[in-house]
């Protein structure tokens, strides 16, 4: 077999890689959305004035959540959730939600800290000025603090999203199923094909790496576009 033929055969496997990239992206996207929602909720609880016992209680819960989730490895959390689901449901024909929830819960803790520190880094004088003209805490947050905090957190949020996209590669530790058929994420497919054709293992790994890189570069581009847009209404 000539080199061209060999390369041609490898090229024919591209569909498998793209499909797996798709699963990786679905998991990452779902986890980002879930993580962002959890992050916003936790950040709001952490930042709200502690003037009533219910908020104080939720604040304690939020601190506990953030401590535990940030203090344990993502892979361990994923395996714990995956195994618990196995125990409860025995088998699921589609289990994409398991990694989405695991990564979402994980990312939520990081997002919460990012959002909290973003809001905290807005000059406290802005809140005072808002309150001094009679606006409520909520209105000042909504109209003054959050718009300024967004500008501050965009780079860090994108950093977290990029990390999350790459972190989804630990999904290859669990068995993914879609409609009862086993599927693989991007790293998973490279490993599976590598087992079948050990001579090409490195090539498959490079292919996966290139695809991750492409996605991250695309995300970086989006980040720059958003940052430029936010800068526009400054001057």
């Amino acid at each position, binding site marked *: 077999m000539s080199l061209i033929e060999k390369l041609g055969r490898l090229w024919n496997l591209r569909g498998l890689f793209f499909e797996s990239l798709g699963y990786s992206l679905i998991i990452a996207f779902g986890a980002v959305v879930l993580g962002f929602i959890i992050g916003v909720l936790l950040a709001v609880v952490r930042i709200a004035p502690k003037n009533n016992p219910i908020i104080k209680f939720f604040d304690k819960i939020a601190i506990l959540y953030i401590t535990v989730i940030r203090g344990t490895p993502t892979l361990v959390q994923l395996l714990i959730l995956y195994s618990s689901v196995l125990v409860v449901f025995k088998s699921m024909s589609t289990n994409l939600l398991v990694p989405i929830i695991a990564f979402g819960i994980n990312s939520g803790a990081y997002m919460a800290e990012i959002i909290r520190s973003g809001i905290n880094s807005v000059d406290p004088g802005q809140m005072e000025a808002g309150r001094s*003209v009679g606006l409520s805490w909520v209105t000042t947050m909504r*109209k003054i603090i959050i718009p300024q905090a967004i500008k501050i957190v965009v780079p860090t949020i994108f950093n977290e999203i990029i990390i999350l996209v790459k972190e989804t590669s630990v999904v290859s530790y669990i068995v993914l199923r879609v409609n009862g058929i086993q599927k693989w994420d991007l790293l998973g497919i490279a490993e599976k094909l590598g087992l079948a054709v050990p001579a090409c293992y490195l090539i498959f790994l490079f292919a996966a790496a290139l695809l991750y890189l492409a996605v991250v570069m695309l995300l970086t581009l989006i980040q720059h576009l958003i940052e430029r847009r936010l800068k526009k209404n400054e001057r």
Partner: protein
Amino acid sequence: MNDNYIEIKGLYKNFGKLKVLKGVSCNIKKGEKVAIIGASGSGKSTMLRCMNLLETPTYGEVWVENKLLTPIDPYLHFDVIRLSKTYAKLSEVYKAEHPDASTEEIDAAVIADIKKNDLLKNYEGTAYRAAIKTLYKENFQQVDLSRRDMGMVFQHFNLFNNLTVLENLTLAPVELKLKTKAEAEEKAMDLLKRIGLEDKAKAYPSTLSGGQKQRIAIVRALAMDPQVMLFDEPTSALDPEMVGEVLDLIKKVADAGMTVVIVTHEMGFAREVADRVLFMADGVILEEGAPEELFNHPKNPRTQDFLSKVL
């Protein structure tokens, strides 16, 4: 009822262990111009910030237009005390001990006992809790309502950085539904014209000089049609060449009949504009009086010392 616009009674403020205000009382009448002077750390800014409750006093009361802004003391509300479980229990006991006492007598004795011995606990039944909650809520809303009438100007301007100059002026009146957007913008443009900055309406604060920022901060407060203006060292963060324009504007505001409270290091300005000057040191008002009196014949040795250093 009296003609004091702001009344401060026995105000204490601690930041942790640091005692910043140690029992300050003062009244500010409608239309009065009051300057507060004193060395840094004397508590003058803290007192000003307590007036609109940007700082919550540790003890003491702040009244604005005869409305109490500081957190409410349940012991002052007999109706609330009567809802408490402690009250029910004690009045039973009292009734048993004094079978022929009238209801008024029981009431008076029990409330006096509760107040004197600080008997109210955290949990006093749902009716009590609901009454307290309503009280706190009304008090809480009153703070926001009163702040609308008290314009505040900060040392560091604190313009809303994410909004244009025009939006800075219109945000609060429109959000609080005091004016329509068109009305608010008309008023804002009028105010900007008066300070000669109408061409900056669409600019963002980051493009303005310090003096321009502070003048816009002043008209932002004026856009709410306040009853009183509080100035917290409005020229301390400015380059020297910009102090004049800001002081001129404050003088114009004062001359137009606005009630003004100003914390300042500009002694000449305090003397020129104020009707009354308060000298603060170590968290108390040491001396107060008409500017001529206080600046020319200070009585307290601390005042004499301070004035000899700054004049």
